[in-house]
């Protein structure tokens, strides 16, 4: 754990009574390094450490614990606080279908997540779900969602000759008619710098008034996460985030960046390729992983 790295650094400060800017400087440097290696964004690390420092300075040294361990505990606690309370709740519609919009960069795991979410809502909440294949651009994207829909036992909506905003609007109308409780809109992957596609997804949002708008992000995302997530949050009122591929060995610092930049809860995490591979997000499990 990270505190072992500090042991030698903090040997020098054994005689002190309180945590001071001086005796935590070296420790914070090591924390900074660990967070950057974990892919937490540079600007997020900077602001996070400023907060940790102001919280830590003046704290009385705890007996039986080195200043190193103490500062790491402050970092750990602040990280947990930043990650927020576990919140996998979805805002259910008071009448008519609950609409969930999934958006994100190419390859982040949206289509697979749409199917996993359908599976979870059917199983755990006994909801009747309609999946909507609104990716008109990727070859065989519709087939992909249809195949997954079959595996989940959930209908997949698609209509030819319609652009995504109109297609999604018709899907919601169809769900209302058909009595489905939830509509999950799977959209095409897009770059946050692609103006036309960002406008398109904003239009999908305008036409369908989703109850939940979730950004789907790959756990291995690096520094660019702040650029893309800020842009998506500007164009769409994100209500939450889903982080995928956490079954890999990426440290997952993107989780911290997302919490800091988007400020919305991480609702679920993807932990396998299978359809039951979607779990609620538990912040405490990831703080240690991120700190390394």
């Amino acid at each position, binding site marked *: 754990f990270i505190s072992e790295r500090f042991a030698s650094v903090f040997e020098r400060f054994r005689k002190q009574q309180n945590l001071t800017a001086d005796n935590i400087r070296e420790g914070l440097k090591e924390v900074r*390094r660990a967070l*950057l*290696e*974990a*892919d937490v*964004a*540079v600007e997020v690390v900077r602001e996070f450490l400023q907060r940790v420092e102001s919280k830590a300075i003046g704290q009385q040294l705890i007996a039986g614990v080195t200043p190193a361990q103490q500062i790491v505990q402050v970092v750990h606690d602040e990280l947990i606080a930043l990650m927020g309370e576990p919140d996998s709740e979805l805002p259910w519609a008071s009448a008519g279908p609950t609409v969930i919009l999934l958006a994100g*960069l*190419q*390859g*982040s*795991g949206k289509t697979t997540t749409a199917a996993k979410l359908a599976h979870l809502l059917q199983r755990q909440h006994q909801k009747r779900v309609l999946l909507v294949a609104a990716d008109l*651009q*990727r*070859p*065989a*994207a519709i*087939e*992909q969602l*249809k*195949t*997954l829909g079959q*595996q989940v036992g959930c209908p997949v909506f698609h209509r030819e000759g319609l652009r995504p905003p109109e297609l999604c609007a018709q899907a919601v109308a169809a769900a209302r008619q058909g009595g489905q409780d939830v509509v999950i809109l799977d959209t095409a992957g897009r*770059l*946050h*710098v692609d103006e036309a596609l960002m406008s398109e997804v904003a239009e999908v949002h305008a036409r369908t008034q989703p109850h939940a708008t979730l950004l789907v992000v*790959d756990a*291995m*995302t*690096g*520094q*660019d*996460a702040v*650029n*893309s997530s800020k842009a998506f949050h500007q164009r769409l009122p994100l209500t939450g985030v889903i982080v995928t*591929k956490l*079954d*890999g*060995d*990426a*440290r997952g*610092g*993107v989780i911290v960046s997302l919490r800091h930049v988007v400020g919305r809860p991480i609702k679920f995490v993807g932990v396998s*390729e299978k359809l039951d591979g979607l779990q609620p997000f538990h912040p405490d499990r990831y703080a240690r992983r991120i700190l390394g």
Partner: protein
Amino acid sequence: IGARRTIDAAFLRELEDTLLAADIGVAKTEEILADLQRRYRAGEVAEGEDLLRFLKASLRAELAAEEQELRFAAQGPTVVLVVGVNGAGKTTTVAKLAHRLRAIGRRPLVAAADTYRAAAIEQLSVWAQRARVEIVKGEPGGDAAAVAYDAVAAAQARGCDTVLIDTAGRLHNKEHLMRELEKMRRVIQKRLPEAPHDVLLVLDATAGQNAVQQAKVFKEIIGVTGLVITKLDGTAKGGVAITVKRELGLTVRYIGVGEGLDDLQPFDPDAFVEAIFA
């Protein structure tokens, strides 16, 4: 960062932010900054020379390689295995490569060896049609290694000079999936001992430091020979390429700059480094 002549704290801080933001990584960034300061003090950077230009030149030099875009076989088909983690851009890259090879007068064949993921075979089939190249595929759920084997055999029989094998995305920490890839390699070698001639690891430019681990493990287990960095048309810089080159000796052969067949470019270290400081 404007043209600078003096290394002051402000310059170093700005430079550090730029390098870190490009996913160059904290260790490599520290090394670059320390090296820059050392050379400056040693007078290796000429008075008045633009320090940034000096740094760009040294980064370019690190990434440059005396490497052909593909290691073409002297005779018989060239077999290229395309691997990487889920969603990196392998299938699209295979399509783009096939299109490019056809444009330069070669006769490629693509193999749909992702027999696992929903509609993976359909996805490559659509691409093969658009790129107007032949495709060898199996049944969904079938043996992926068998598809690779059949593709090499088909290329030999039909006189195709390049076989591009698309594989299923897999996280490198999944031992059973990595073993499956190793098995595919052995099966290909059975058919053609000198194959695969190239094993290209596809890395997503938006990936952070984990990309270095991906490169390490894929190289260790199935012998990666080169990299493709995709999605460089976004704002991610793919700076991990510098560490991967330094630690594993792997060079970038191509970059992906979009979702269309034409959106593949041979790697240009100059443009890559310029983009980091743009």
